């Protein structure tokens, strides 16, 4: 199986994900490409967000994502996987993460993409801080807490 994992400061180019998945290689007989993108929301429960900063543990990130892809590959018949993830400063409506899967059939592509995303949310070493634009709290900073539902989502694949 072919895979690509890129952690980047620059904006994500969705075309890069599609080009990687669409290029047929070897015995691939892809009939389904699923691409999920996670986008930065412009507000949280406290108000409007100016930006987020995404920190990561560089030496751990790629190996963790590679293990996640391997786990999805054990469960589903997939031929190619791509994960793109931003770090550093990210602005509202920017794409934060892309998970793309190519498979022979759509069932495997949909399910594998969801599984990779669920594992990424609960295992990959990224931490997100929101910087607010509220009039009373300009520049207020808040580390985002993991949602209990993220762990529930991961457990459903075990």
């Amino acid at each position, binding site marked *: 199986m072919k895979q690509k994992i890129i952690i980047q400061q620059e904006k994500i180019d969705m075309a890069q994900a599609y080009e990687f998945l669409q290029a047929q290689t070897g015995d691939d007989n892809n009939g389904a490409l699923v691409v999920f993108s*996670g986008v930065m929301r412009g507000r949280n429960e406290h108000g409007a967000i100016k930006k987020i900063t*995404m*920190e*990561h*543990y560089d*030496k*751990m990130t790629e*190996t*963790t994502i590679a293990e996640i892809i391997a786990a999805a590959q054990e469960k589903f018949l997939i031929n190619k996987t791509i994960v793109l*993830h931003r770090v550093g400063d990210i602005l509202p409506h920017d794409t*934060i*993460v892309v998970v793309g899967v190519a498979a022979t059939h759509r069932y495997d592509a949909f399910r594998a993409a969801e599984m990779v*995303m669920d594992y*990424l*949310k*609960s*295992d*990959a*070493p*990224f*931490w*997100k*801080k929101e910087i607010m634009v509220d009039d009373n709290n300009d520049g207020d900073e808040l*580390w*985002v*807490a*993991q949602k209990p539902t993220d762990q529930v989502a991961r457990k459903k694949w075990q």
Partner: protein
Amino acid sequence: MMIQVRYFSWVREKLQKDRETLELPANASRLQDVLATLDQRGGDYALLKKNNGMLRYALNYRLAKPSDQIKNGDEVAIFPPVTGG
């Protein structure tokens, strides 16, 4: 035994450092001994014990438990639950 410790997210901010080299007592053998050595320093390091139910650990770039064995030259990381994506 000497090990490297890395801190991330609000743990890094509260300790005001992202890494340090730590010399452990001769009888240290597990990740929990790293935590105990840091706790003995007091001050801001008290947050490690105070939040131990929610903090996560990695040993040589893989998620780890306090009971995991450590050795000279290892890298231990301490951080809150991850929030990527």
